[in-house]
C-alpha cells in the first residue's frame, strides 16, 4: 500500500548524486531546477501519502495504524541482531514528511533567487538534497538504529551547509562547532541506544513502543546509581535530542550556525533538523511516559531553554541570531509540552500540542528566516542598527514578516496562537511553575519579535548605499506560500490527526488561559511599539537600569566563555596535555626504542657483509669443515 513512500526518501538521494557528480558540467541554474523539481515530486508524494493516510486507509476503528510501508534487511549479524532500513508510516512521520518536504521545497525555490551568481551553487544544491534525503530518512525510520544513521547524516549535511562560505574563517569555525557539539551529544545518544537495545533486545520502534513490548510491558529490572537502566537510557537518548535541538546547555552551536546561507538557516536550523530532538522524544514517548524522571528532565530542560533563549533574544542585534534564539526558545516550548504530557486521550494534550507547535512553528519560523534573507539581500547587513523604515521598499517582505511575527507572538487567528495555547493549557494542568515560565516566555517572544519588526520596518530610515529593492519573484513566492501556512496552519484539527495514543479526542479552547496569553502577547507588542516604533532613548535607559543583567544577556550569559574555559583551561591543560605527553613519551617512546635498538644492532653487524668474496668463501669453507668434523667424530 505504502511501498511507494520509499521514493519520497530516494528521490532527493538521486538528485544529490546527480547534482553532486554532474552538476558542475551544466549551468548553475540547471542544478537549481533539478533540485527543485525532484523535491516538488517528493512533496506531491508526501501530500498524497498524508491524504490517503489520514482520510482513507490510516484509520481502523478510530485508531491510526502504524504501517511499515517498506522494509529491507540491511545488516545481519546474527539471527537476533539485525538492522533494517525502512519506512514507518504513522501520524507523526506523515506530519514530518509534510513539514520537511514543504519547507525544503520553499528553501529550494527561494535559493534559486537568493544564491544567484554565487560560487558553488551546484555544491549548495547537492548538499541541500543530501540534507533533505537524510531528514526524510530520519523521520520515517522504522528502528532506532536507522534513525541514528540518518541523525548523523543530517549532522554532516548541516556541517557542509554551515560551512558553505568556507573562505570565511567564522563560517569554518561555526561549522566545526556545530559538528563537534552535536557529535558530543550524539555520544550520549549512542550509549542510550546501546543500553536500550541491550536490555530490550530490539531496535525496532514498533516493538519498543508497544504496550506489551520488552521496554514497557516487561521493563528491565537492572538499576544503576539508584535509577533504573531504562531511565538512564532515556536520559542519554534525550541528551542526543537536546544536542540536535539546541537545548541548554548544548545550544551554543545554533547561534553560530547562522553563518550559513539564510535558506539553510530556515530549512535546517529553524524548521526541520533542530526539531529532530523533539521528534525523537515524541517517537519514544510511550517509553518516556514510563520513566517519569526522564520526562521531568525533558520538561524542565525545555522550559529553562525557552526562557534562557528568550532573554538573550531580546538583547541581540544580529537579526539572524535573534531568530536563532527564538528558534531555541520555541523548541524549548515543544520539549516542555512533551514533558508535561500524559498518555492517551485528553491526558496526551501536551504531546499533541508539541507536535502541533512543531508543525506551525515550521511555517512561521521558516518564513521569518526567509524574510530575514530577503532583508539581508536588500540591505547587505545582518545588523538591526543598519536597518529601519524598510516597509515602503520591501512591501511583500514587510507583510509576510508581520504575519510571521503575529503568528509566533500568538495572536489569533494566526497559527502560533492555537498551538501555543494548547501548550500553555497542558502546562497549566500539569505544573504551575512550568506554566508561569512558559507564560512569561510568551510575552518575551512577542516583545523580541516586534522589537525586530519595528526596528527593521519602522524606525529611522537609514542612509542606504543604494535603495533597497524588493526581492525577485523566486524569493517572494515562497514567502507568500509560507505566509499562507502561517495564517491557516492553526486551523488544522491536530487532536483528530496526531495524538499520543493515535486515538482521536476533542479539544476546546480554554479561554481562561487563552485570554491572558493574548493579553501578555499584546503587552509585549505594546512595549516593543513604545520602544522601537520611533528612535527613542528608552532602550538605552532600560539597558542601563538593568546594567549587569543586560550585559550578561548580551554576552549570552557567558556560556560560550564557560565552555572555552572548561575545554581550554581544564580539559586541554589537565587531561589532554598529560595524555599527549603519555602518547609521545611512553607509547611513541617504546616504539622508537625498539626501532633504535634494531638500528644500532644492524649497524654493528653490518660489517659481516663486507663484500669481500674470499671472506665469504672462508666462512663457508670453515663451516663445511666443521660440519664434516662433526659428522666424522660426533655422529653416532
Amino acid at each position: 500500500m505504502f511501498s511507494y513512500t520509499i521514493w519520497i526518501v530516494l528521490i532527493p538521494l538521486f538528485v544529490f548524486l546527480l547534482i553532486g557528480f554532474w552538476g558542475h558540467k551544466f549551468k548553475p541554474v540547471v542544478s537549481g531546477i533539478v533540485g527543485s523539481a525532484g523535491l516538488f515530486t517528493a512533496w506531491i508524494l508526501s501530500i498524497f501519502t498524508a491524504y490517503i493516510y489520514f482520510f482513507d486507509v490510516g484509520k481502523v476503528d478510530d485508531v491510526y495504524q502504524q504501517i511499515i510501508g517498506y522494509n529491507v534487511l540491511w545488516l545481519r549479524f546474527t539471527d537476533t541482531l539485525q538492522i533494517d532500513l525502512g519506512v514507518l508510516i504513522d501520524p507523526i512521520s506523515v506530519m514530518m514528511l509534510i513539514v520537511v518536504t514543504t519547507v525544503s521545497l520553499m528553501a529550494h525555490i527561494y535559493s534559486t533567487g537568493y544564491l544567484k551568481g554565487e560560487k558553488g551553487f551546484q555544491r549548495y544544491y547537492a548538499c541541500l538534497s543530501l540534507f533533505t534525503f537524510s531528514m526524510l530518512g530520519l523521520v520515517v525510520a522504522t528502528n532506532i538504529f536507522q534513525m541514528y544513521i540518518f541523525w548523523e547524516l543530517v549532522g554532516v549535511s548541516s556541517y557542509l551547509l554551515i560551512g558553505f562560505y568556507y573562505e570565511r574563517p567564522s563560517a569554518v569555525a561555526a561549522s566545526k562547532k556545530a559538528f563537534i557539539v552535536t557529535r558530543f551529544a550524539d555520544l550520549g545518544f549512542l550509549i542510550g541506544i546501546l543500553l536500550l537495545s541491550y536490555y530490550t533486545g530490539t531496535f525496532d520502534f514498533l516493538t519498543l513502543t508497544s504496550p506489551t513490548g520488552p521496554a514497557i510491558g516487561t521493563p528491565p529490572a537492572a538499576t544503576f546509581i539508584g535509577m533504573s537502566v531504562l531511565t538512564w537510557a532515556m536520559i542519554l537518548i534525550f541528551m542526543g535530542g537536546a544536542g540536535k535541538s539546541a537545548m541548554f546547555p548544548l545550544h551554543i552551536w545554533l547561534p553560530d550556525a547562522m553563518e550559513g546561507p539564510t535558506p539553510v538557516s530556515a530549512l535546517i536550523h529553524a524548521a526541520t533538523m533542530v526539531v529532530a530532538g523533539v521528534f525523537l522524544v515524541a517517537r519514544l514517548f510511550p517509553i518516556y511516559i514510563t520513566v517519569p524522571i526522564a520526562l521531568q528532565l525533558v520538561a524542565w530542560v525545555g522550559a529553562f531553554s525557552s526562557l534562557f533563549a528568550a532573554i538573550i533574544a531580546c538583547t541581540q542585534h544580529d537579526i539572524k541570531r535573534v531568530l536563532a534564539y527564538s528558534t531555541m526558545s520555541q523548541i524549548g516550548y515543544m520539549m516542555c509540552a512533551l514533558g508535561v504530557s500524559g498518555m492517551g486521550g485528553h491526558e496526551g494534550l501536551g504531546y499533541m500540542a508539541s507536535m502541533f507547535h512543531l508543525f506551525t512553528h515550521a511555517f512561521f519560523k521558516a518564513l521569518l528566516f526567509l524574510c530575514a534573507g530577503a532583508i539581508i539581500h536588500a540591505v547587505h547587513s545582518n545588523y538591526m542598527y543598519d536597518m529601519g523604515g524598510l516597509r515602503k521598499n520591501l512591501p511583500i517582505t514587510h507583510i509576510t514578516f508581520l504575519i510571521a511575527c503575529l503568528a509566533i507572538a500568538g495572536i489569533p487567528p494566526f497559527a502560533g496562537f492555537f498551538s501555543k495555547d494548547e501548550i500553555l493549557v497542558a502546562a497549566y494542568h500539569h505544573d504551575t511553575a512550568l506554566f508561569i515560565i512558559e507564560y512569561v516566555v510568551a510575552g518575551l517572544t512577542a516583545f523580541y519579535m516586534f522589537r525586530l519588526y519595528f526596528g527593521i520596518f519602522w524606525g529611522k530610515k537609514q542612509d542606504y548605499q543604494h535603495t533597497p529593492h524588493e526581492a525577485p519573484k523566486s524569493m517572494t513566492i515562497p514567502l507568500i506560500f509560507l505566509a499562507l501556512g502561517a495564517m491557516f496552519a492553526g486551523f488544522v484539527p491536530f487532536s483528530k490527526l496526531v495524538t499520543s495514543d493515535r486515538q482521536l479526542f476533542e479539544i476546546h479552547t480554554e479561554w481562561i488561559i487563552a485570554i491572558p496569553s493574548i493579553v501578555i502577547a499584546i503587552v509585549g507588542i505594546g512595549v516593543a511599539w513604545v520602544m522601537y516604533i520611533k528612535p527613542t532613548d528608552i532602550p538605552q535607559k532600560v539597558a542601563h537600569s538593568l546594567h549587569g543583567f543586560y550585559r550578561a544577556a548580551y554576552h549570552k550569559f557567558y556560556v560560550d566563555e564557560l565552555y572555552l574555559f572548561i575545554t581550554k583551561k581544564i580539559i586541554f591543560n589537565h587531561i589532554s596535555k598529560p595524555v599527549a605527553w603519555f602518547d609521545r613519551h611512553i607509547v611513541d617512546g617504546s616504539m622508537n626504542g625498539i626501532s633504535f635498538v634494531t638500528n644500532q644492532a644492524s649497524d654493528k653487524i653490518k660489517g659481516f657483509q663486507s663484500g669481500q668474496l674470499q671472506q665469504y668463501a672462508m666462512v663457508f669453507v670453515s663451516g663445511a669443515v666443521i660440519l664434516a668434523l662433526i659428522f666424522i667424530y660426533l655422529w653416532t
Partner: protein
Amino acid sequence: MFEGVPLSWFLILSTIMFFVGVYGFLVRKNLITILMSIELILNSVCINFVAFNKILYPEHMEGMFFTIFIIAVAAAEASVAIAIIINIYRRIASIDVEKMDKMKY
C-alpha cells in the same frame, strides 16, 4: 694401465688437488688464479668419479659420463667467468678480488 693401483691413491690425489684448489681460492688475489683454483677443485671431483667408476663398478659408465659433463660445464663456466672478468677489468681497471666490494650492504 692402472691395474693394481688401489682406490685410496686416487682419493689421496684428488683430496690433495681439492685442498690445493680451496687454498688457492681463499688466498690468491688474482681473479684468473681463483678461476684456475676452481678448475682444480672440479678436476679433483672428476678424478673421484672416474676412479670410483673404474674400480667399484667397472661394468657401468655413469662416472665417465659425469666427468664428460663436468668438463663441458667447466668449459662453459670458464668462458662466462672470463667474460665477467673482462667486464670487471674494463670497469675498475683491475682484477684484484679485494677491490670488488661494491655489493656490500
